[in-house]
């Protein structure tokens, strides 16, 4: 797994364009910015491909992981971009961390909780930025760190 991966996914209502660089990308930010919308689009495309009506452009296979049988799903995923939405407890488990460490996939995690088992960089924490119909990833400003530094 090397290099940047560009992803462009759209339907009639909205379009997401972003690039991922490392094996783990975390997406956080405010509610209502489109994280679940993006995950649902990937999920529908994973299930139905072009028949979903969604247009996906990516050099790698994109997969939306679901909680049921996630270990088996990851066993099957090779050289892919795996998207995981919030609400799945397994993301913070040691089992999941071990699988990620030995994997050649890229992972995009929509999760706010701190994942102590995973080796991700603070430089790879993004939020979704919207301009018109187009949504992109933007590096998240660490407002808390700034607030704490200023107040101590």
């Amino acid at each position, binding site marked *: 797994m090397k290099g940047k991966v560009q992803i462009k996914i759209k339907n009639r209502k909205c379009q997401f364009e972003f690039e991922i660089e490392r094996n783990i990308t975390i997406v956080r930010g*405010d509610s209502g910015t*489109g*994280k*679940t919308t993006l995950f649902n689009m990937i999920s529908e495309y994973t299930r139905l491909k072009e028949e979903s009506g969604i247009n996906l452009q990516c050099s790698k296979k994109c997969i939306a992981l679901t909680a049921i049988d996630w270990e088996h799903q990851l066993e099957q995923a090779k050289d892919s971009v795996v998207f995981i939405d*919030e609400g*799945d407890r397994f993301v913070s488990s040691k089992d999941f961390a071990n699988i990620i460490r030995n994997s050649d996939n890229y992972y995009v995690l929509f999760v706010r909780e*701190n994942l102590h088992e995973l080796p991700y960089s603070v430089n790879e924490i993004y939020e979704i930025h919207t301009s018109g119909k187009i949504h992109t990833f933007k590096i998240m400003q660490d407002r*808390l760190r700034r607030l704490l530094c200023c*107040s101590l």
Partner: protein
Amino acid sequence: MLNIYFGDTDDVIYNTAVYFKNTYNEKWLTKELTKQMILDVDKSEVVSEKVINSPVLGMISPEQLSGGVKTLMLVAYDKKHVFNASTCGDNCAKWLLKIAENEKREINLRHIMNFGDGEFKIRVLNTNRIVHNMKELILEAGRYV
């Protein structure tokens, strides 16, 4: 007052989106508090109990609202359970404080939510201490997340 347990615990509804889908009451949608929260967080307008007008997605069902707004409704109207509020972004923080303004509410956070620059009153259940601003909150709860 808002009571928060920080960190991992089994005694909460973790996947609030699924819980909302299977338990929400349509009457919640037309309450004034809900309308304000949806307008502020999702920039969307409640049309009826079943329909919300989203500037991005058009007419949507309550199940298509953001995870944050769904969790806010659960915290506001389902007093029997404790919910994982790490499904809420920082733009939900003021609403959590408002919901708990006049009565006790308990939530679970697995990250430090930014409650803003102002003063507030939150009980950190891990230590049973009350904090009044973000500096105190981080120092009190940071070690648990």
